[in-house]
């Protein structure tokens, strides 16, 4: 069992949790993830290691409540336990001195970007960060990432914070301005990573993306997480999650991420109904049914 040590609600449905998992914390590196199962009947879902503290033996996760599992996770309070928590999984980011690196983060992907940006900065790179969100209130970790960035550009779809537009517009501008870019690291929604990769390809700028296919075991045993990179099958959980953005078949990834839509809808609806019943019976939101 893995205890919730701290919990912070970053936004309505965006939650940060610090989990006690000493073995994971001891080996964690930027770019890796964990797989957790909230309870005995739960699904195994991957979440990026947003931070870790080796001394305290804790790992921080930041997640967006999108479906049953993440909503259930969000109901846990400090002192509650997660049934299983495995990691660190995947290959760590290749942190080297590249020169000028641009870290592009969108939505909850910004949380995944944070430890990488920090490590890139600590390795002596010039770090320019471009963070994007739909609207001001959804923008996370601006301060944290800003601390490790030589330059920070904020973009919102609706212009409520920073510039109006998309992260790709900001990146294009930098390139057009003649900034010599050695690496672009892009993490966010699949469509964002696709647009960024398409943008940098003609310029030959090395672009890494962190993929988020549906996973089960996370050890390379099942192939649920397979993605096509440069025409080859790769397992994101062991070969990735980071890949060369110019070789990734993003369209296939989007299709495969939708393969359980119907079931996910059923699970969520049922869960919400159960929650409502609990409230109706005078229990507080989050009590286990």
């Amino acid at each position, binding site marked *: 069992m893995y205890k919730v040590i701290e919990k912070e609600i970053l936004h309505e449905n965006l939650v940060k949790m610090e989990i006690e998992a000493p073995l994971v914390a001891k080996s964690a590196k930027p770019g890796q993830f964990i797989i957790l199962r909230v309870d005995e009947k739960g699904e195994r879902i991957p979440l990026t290691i947003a931070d870790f503290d080796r001394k305290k033996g804790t790992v921080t996760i930041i997640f967006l409540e999108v479906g049953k599992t993440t909503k259930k996770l969000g109901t846990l309070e400090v002192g509650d336990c997660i049934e299983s928590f495995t990691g660190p999984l995947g290959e760590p980011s290749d942190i080297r001195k590249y020169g000028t690196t641009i870290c592009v983060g969108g939505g909850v992907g910004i949380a995944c970007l944070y430890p990488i940006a920090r490590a890139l900065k600590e390795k002596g790179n010039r770090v320019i960060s471009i963070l994007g969100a739909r609207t001001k209130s959804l923008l996370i970790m601006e301060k944290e990432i800003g601390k490790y960035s030589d330059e920070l550009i904020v973009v919102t779809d609706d212009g409520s914070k920073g510039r109006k537009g998309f992260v790709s517009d900001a990146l294009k501008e930098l390139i057009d301005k003649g900034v010599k870019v050695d690496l672009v690291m892009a993490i966010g929604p699949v469509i964002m990573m696709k647009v960024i990769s398409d943008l940098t390809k003609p310029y030959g700028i090395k672009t890494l993306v962190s993929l988020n296919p549906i996973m089960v075991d996370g050890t*390379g045993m*099942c192939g649920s997480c397979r993605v096509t990179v440069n025409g080859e099958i790769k397992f994101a959980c062991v070969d990735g999650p980071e890949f060369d953005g110019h070789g990734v078949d993003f369209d296939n990834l989007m299709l495969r991420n939708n393969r359980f839509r119907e079931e996910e809808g059923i*699970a969520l609806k049922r869960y919400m109904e159960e929650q409502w019943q609990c409230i109706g019976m005078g229990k507080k939101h989050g009590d286990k049914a």
Partner: protein
Amino acid sequence: MVIKHKYEMPEQPPKERIHNFDEVPLGYDEETAVKEAERCLQCKPKPCTKGCPVGINIPEFIKCIRERRFDDAIKVIKESNSLPAVTGRVCPYENQCEGNCLLGKIGEPVAIGRLERFVADWERKKGVTVPEKPPSTGKRVAVVGSGPAGLTVASELAKKGHEVVVFEALHAPGGVLLYGIPEFRLPKEILSREIDYIKRLGVEIKCNVVVGKTISLSEIKKEFDAVFIGTGAGLPRWLNVPGENLAQVYSANEFLTRVNLMKAYLFPEYDTPIAVGNRVVTVGAGNVAMDCARTALRLGAKESFIIYRRSKDEAPARREEIAHAEEEGVKFMFLANPIRFIGDDAGNVTGMEYVQMKLGEPDESGRRRPIPIPKSNSLMQVDTVIVAIGQTPNPLLTSELKGLKLGKRGNIIVDDNQQTSVKGVFAGGDIATGAATVILAMGAGRRAAEAIDEYLRK
């Protein structure tokens, strides 16, 4: 008088069982078991024992059943096999003990597998007694992987007084017995009792530890006096044909793991989903393929097909499993091979193109090589595909330890004592042999336990 046929073992009728996940064969009762045991000739050369990969003294335990000394029967089996309730269900007896039985020359062999299962179940009902703890040797052994190989090593070494810690990547122990073989062939209740027994022997099982990621093998080596690697053959093989990445194409491992480990057959009571269409095709004809095709029916598929590039004679699955699949209505397409899967705009599978095959000269495996027949292509409508054409050893851990010699297919090379090229590191089961059987993994586990014990006492 010799009775030529095995006494029947009752089974759930096919029409009923395809609607549930309960066990299919129901086991002998006491009277039938004793009658079946009486068929044994108690011949002196014991060809059955020679056919058993772990060398169970078969005529002896059968004699005990005959004399209704079931306690003694289980003792005899447990001298050489620590998981009889499992092997009594999944062993390929027909190629092993029963294949060698003298009675087989004039009729059916003694139903050794059913008798093994009977005594194991009898013991389970009665309650298993745990042997007393031997004095501690003060030595510590790490076992990586909790499949049949790892569990056997762990229990044998614990019985010899060593401290054993098992590291398992998944959230529960058992390996393929847990995530691969379905409930209707091996009820998980049986597995959990066996694991409980091993824990009561004093073995500590640490789940959620991926060795090579959570902790490195080198760290483990420093902390323990010896290491056993039993990580299995968990890497799925693909056909490498177009369309294999469409949404409704599963590897057998994904399909079975969702259903067995994650209990997707109980969705939405359990959270993990599985999506199965009306027409499911499973590629391959091993035990794994039979498990997938039969599982698909239980999940509501209207039609479940098996497509295999060789003929029925070459199919590697156990005869009993093929027969079970046939009874349940699985449709077999032999001498046919998919060359492409076709999808719609949403990325869902809608069809399969395949070719007819014929058999040519024997290849290196000794089986006749399948050759495509030109211009024999056909199209077939399918909406779910399961690729069950084999697994190879998972490189996650073996790539980490320097000096560990690997074979061509990524398997760990071991000597007759399961010793690897690194001192103090032993290996066995599918990681050494490539995908094989439960009993071979257990046999390797026993040999390794002997060798580790000797190594530690030196």
